[in-house]
């Protein structure tokens, strides 16, 4: 159980990486952009991969009538998400310590994992809504009003994950260090649950 507690502490601490590293990244490359433009999505706001990328992406987006990218104050997510991350990391570390002292059942580790998974799924769902909103809620007076072959207006939402062609741009959407640490941390909480349960079973067997 001691080992499980330590792994749980490490795993949940990894969430704090979200305050240092970007969670996700969307990168736009085109022939005339040999150095692609990139948006780093941090838990508390958007930042350009290079200093002026946000301004330059907004500059391009105005052709298709897309809204300018949100500032931290424009979206409730950027103030709520950091609080959730602090809370979940703190909670994880706390039950890790309690686990270390043998005061709780490893099932709580699993509970933390499930809770975190639900929050993560909600986050991804919200992220997708956001992408679709930006990609489809376009200014009716846009300079370029393009339609698909079937006559429906073209959508410009980048992929949730992976690659998508948007006009002359190749859009790539992938997790970055913060997001990867989050995934690894969650995986470790699951590991700590299994190790903890195994240790418990063994100690129970020994006690018998």
């Amino acid at each position, binding site marked *: 159980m001691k080992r499980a507690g330590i792994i749980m502490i490490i795993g949940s601490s990894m969430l704090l990486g979200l305050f240092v590293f970007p969670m996700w990244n969307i990168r736009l490359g085109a022939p005339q952009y040999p*150095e692609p433009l990139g948006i780093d999505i941090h838990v508390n706001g958007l930042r350009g991969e290079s*200093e*002026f990328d946000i*301004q*330059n992406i907004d*500059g391009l987006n105005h*052709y298709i009538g897309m809204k300018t990218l949100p500032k931290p104050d424009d979206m409730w997510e950027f103030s709520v998400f950091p609080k959730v991350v602090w809370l979940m990391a703190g909670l994880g570390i706390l039950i890790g310590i309690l686990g270390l002292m043998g005061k709780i059942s490893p099932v709580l580790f699993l509970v933390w994992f499930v809770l975190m998974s639900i929050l993560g799924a909600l986050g991804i769902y919200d992220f997708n809504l956001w992408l679709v909103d930006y990609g489809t809620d376009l200014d009716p007076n846009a*300079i370029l009003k393009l339609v698909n072959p079937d006559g429906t207006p073209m959508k410009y939402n980048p992929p949730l994950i992976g690659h998508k062609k948007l006009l002359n741009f190749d859009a790539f959407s992938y997790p970055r260090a913060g997001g990867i640490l989050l995934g690894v941390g969650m995986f470790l909480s699951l590991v700590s649950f299994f190790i903890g349960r195994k240790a418990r079973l063994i100690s129970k067997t020994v006690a018998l």
Partner: protein
Amino acid sequence: MKTNIIKNTLFISALAFLFSCGQAGDRGGNGALSSNIAEKVYVAPGERDEQYAFLSGGYSGNLTVYGLPSGRLFKEIPVFSQFPTSGYGYSEETKPMLNTSFGFIPWDDLHHPDISQTNGELDGRWIFANGNNTPRIARISLTTFETEEIIEVPNSAGNHSSSFITENTEYVVAGTRFSVPVPQKDMPISEYKANFKGALTFIAVDQEHGHLDIKFQLLMPGFNYDLSHPGRGKSHGWFFFSTYNTEEANSLLEVNASQNDKDFIAAINWKKIEEYVNNGGGTKMPAKYAHNVYDESTHTATSTMKNEVLTVNPADVPGAIYFLPTPKSPHGCDVDPSGQYIIGSGKLSANITVHSFDKMLAAIDAEKFDGDAYGIPIINYDDVLAGSVQSGGLGPLHTEFDGKGNAYTTFFISSEVVKWKLGTWEVVDRKPTYYSVGHLMIPGGNSRKPHGKYLVAMNKITKDRYLPTGPEMEHSAQIYDISGEKMELLYDFPTHGEPHYAAGCDADLLVNNSKKIYRIDENNHPYAIKSPAEARVERDGKEVHIYMSTIRSHFTPDNIEGIKVGDKVYFHITNHEQDFDVPHGFSMIGQRTSEILVMPGQTKTSLWEPERVGVWPFYCTDFCSALHQEMQGYIRVSPANSNIELSYTLDGDDI
């Protein structure tokens, strides 16, 4: 199983490493392709050149930037000439750059570029160049590739033995080709001899900002000071100038200045003179000369008129100046990378004269002099001579070095480059040039550490090398591979203007320092606006100032009314882009000046004096975006006595 995977991965990465090294090393190497000349100059689409070459533009007044080995032209940097392409010398900010004591001069003859050095090696901070006609020295930034400073050189005429720098860029040196009365005065030309003076000017370089300041002018006898080079390594602290017309003729020089069997190379111990000056030596003389400085943060140049210069009489600093007899009106005066050999190319001679720095010091110690000229000791020819290259060519001009013990000299009359060995003076190879070669350049060839892979020969005569274009043609240059024992002619390319000398360096020295944009938050131009929301129009009597923004793809404001005939309208255009390579241009119908090209984050000002009533369009001259054609606007010009209110809008809205 696991270790096998790791091993295999390692093996594959090792292979990949070998292959990538092989690819990088192919060009100009000894691989299977070395016999293929085309391959050596072919830079595939998307790949970049190995070296920069900065070629002087001569009478174009500008400096051109090429790549080696491809010979591709990257940029023309305006220096001494107005340049409509960017608006240099036309915009209000850059007009002061071309100011002189004679007033605004839109042109000069740019000759000898030289890259700044530290410890005798190229450091890539700045490149200096001289204006030959109305003597000036320019400093060009190698981060923005723009001219940042021009200082006029008083008491000089034909600023030709310039603009060479000492090995820590302590000084940029400017010598006069034509001696003149100092100070200028009304006197008979026939009294030239013994009365005219040749000013050699030492301009101190501020190490942080590169700012130029004349430290002293040495007033030498009235010879023609043709070319110069600094001592380096052991001879650091000395400067060497070739001279002709030691006869002091003032007419028909082609005959009368070719009478003496030997002219001189003047050896100047500038450290000694610097010490003399620092201890209060020298005479302050009234002089009028302009000092023009461009500030990168205000994007604006200012011109200041100076009124005094410190002069030094050679007789007052004994032991600082000597003459080294050199046959046949020497032109080129070059110093090898070790600083030991001073090469004088007697342009009417078949041979190249090489003096030894060590022998010079010994001869000075032993006072082995052969008389003096105006009190300056002339060292015995035989006591300073290191050797002479029996070249077999005719008309040697300039010499550069490869850092491997070889020297390369151009021969104007016999149209060739001759490779010879320092120390043994034997000729190793010779290759024809096309035709009548002047200068040559090996990147770093004028430093302690040449990058001896390519040699560029710059010719004066083109004739049949390219498709004919009427009587006037661009000059022609050749690139040679000098990595082997024998030189190999690789490529011909036309050059712009007339290149007199060039400077080159490895691409790595400059690539990462080259600016992409100017930061809008560091723009301190007095008429800059930080965002399009600050755009406005202000009237001050007959002056109208338009604070205008450009961003893809519109001007803010783009409709302006209330301008009147007789107004002076200043368009202060700020480019609010912060993206690499997105300039916007500006031009106004009937405007009697050039367009301006404004880089991202920059502010430039264009003056328009409307003379006719009407509604007049302006537009962006740079194809900035897909909607570039839409980037336009209108100005309503009303009669001088009209009472139309000043107004300015974008999309019908006030700003």
